[in-house]
């Protein structure tokens, strides 16, 4: 029983209290760049989740065999292999989205969340636990991306998943899409507001002075 609860924590903790983006403040660059529209954000979230989960799993599986001196290089190789696989799969089966994501899929390699989880968790834990930790952190990343992308697409383009949400009568009455929301600066502000709301709801996340 004790173990089961631990597995649940591995999955749920990174969604909120230990979220990689809003609490650990990792992976901000990609979070700002690809949250203009909801669809690329979802695909990016899934891609990161797959890469973190499987690289965690593989590294944990061979953690006792990796020579310590080339530890980081081996981790990078595994992550890079997985990222290229994901990139090739997207190009074959989700071409439009892969064009929108462009270089950012390749840049998952440098996403701090991936290396962070490998170093902090996978090297010291069992494969299944590491896999779940990867799923959890990937989900935490996706969750924030989706929320930021939701507001940016809704307010910036008036659409969600490219479907028109804000009725034409609003535009006729003088409503205008906020083009500012399409720029990365507003992504940072949206993310900032998210972090602010989160820390007001969970005061334990605020650092003690």
């Amino acid at each position: 029983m004790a173990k089961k609860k631990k597995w649940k924590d591995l999955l749920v903790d990174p969604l909120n209290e230990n979220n990689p983006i809003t609490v650990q403040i990792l992976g901000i660059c990609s979070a700002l760049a690809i949250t203009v529209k909801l669809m690329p954000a979802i695909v990016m979230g899934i891609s990161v989740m797959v890469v973190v989960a499987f690289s965690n799993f593989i590294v944990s599986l061979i953690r006792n065999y990796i020579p310590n001196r080339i530890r980081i290089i081996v981790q990078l190789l595994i992550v890079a292999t997985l990222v290229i696989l994901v990139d090739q799969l997207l190009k074959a089966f989700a071409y439009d989205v892969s064009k929108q994501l462009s270089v950012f899929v390749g840049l998952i390699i440098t996403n701090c969340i991936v290396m962070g989880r490998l170093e902090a968790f996978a090297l010291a834990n069992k494969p299944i636990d590491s896999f779940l930790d990867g799923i959890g952190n990937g989900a935490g990343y996706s969750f924030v991306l989706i929320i930021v992308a939701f507001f940016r697409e809704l307010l910036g383009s008036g659409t969600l998943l490219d479907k028109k949400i804000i009725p034409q009568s609003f535009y006729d009455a003088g409503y205008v899409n906020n083009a500012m929301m399409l720029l990365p600066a507003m992504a940072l502000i949206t993310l900032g507001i998210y972090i602010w709301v989160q820390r007001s709801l969970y005061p334990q996340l605020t650092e003690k002075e």
Partner: protein
Amino acid sequence: MDRNSNLYTILFAAVIVTVSAVLLAVAVMVLKPAQERNKRQEKMTDIMYTIGLDETALISKAAAEGLQLNYKTIEKYFKKYFLKQYALKADGTVDKSINAFDINMKAEVKKPVDKQRFPIFIAQMDGHKYYVIPLYGKGLWDDIWGYIALEEDANTVKGVKFGHKGETPGLGAEITKKWFEKQFVGEKIFDKDGTFRGITVLKGNKDPENKDKEDHEVDAISGATLTSNGVTRMIKERLQHYVPFFKKIKEQKN
């Protein structure tokens, strides 16, 4: 074996590199056909876009026949409207040994002009004839490309489609936006005397509303002068090679 020894480290590295290389090689080979299909589909969609068959038009056409818009239907419409495609030589004659659609512009533009083949796609739609020409050039940071469709007079622009690899978002990347592409519609590439002029993307031209369609100019993007210059150069450089071909068409008509 001692896990801290140099031999172990080297062996481990060799094994793991081999495994990942084999894995990637297999994946690339297996996925290649699907990726090529996507590229062909994109090319057909882009070419059809320039003669007014954008995605909405294609979807409604497909829906009218009870079809879904997928690779098959896109290929069907492409074949229906684009009856002829030629690979032209520099003197305007047709090289029959090469399929125009398969010409890779990125590789082609690097060859010397007399070795290059210039693809042209000729469409027949609703009683109008259109010539679509692929473009390829350099923007500010990396390659830019596109397609330009001319009307039957081989002079008036019917539509354009641009793409880019890495222009600045919000500035140079705006060339792919509808408002920019719209400006080209109706512009002429030859002046009244029949001299080839191309189309210049110009900042601060005297005609920001772009009402004058005889001036061979469209309005540039603020803050993207170098990308705009790239578009100008690309259009002039590519289209000039088709001038002999267009002259032939005009002679045949007269």
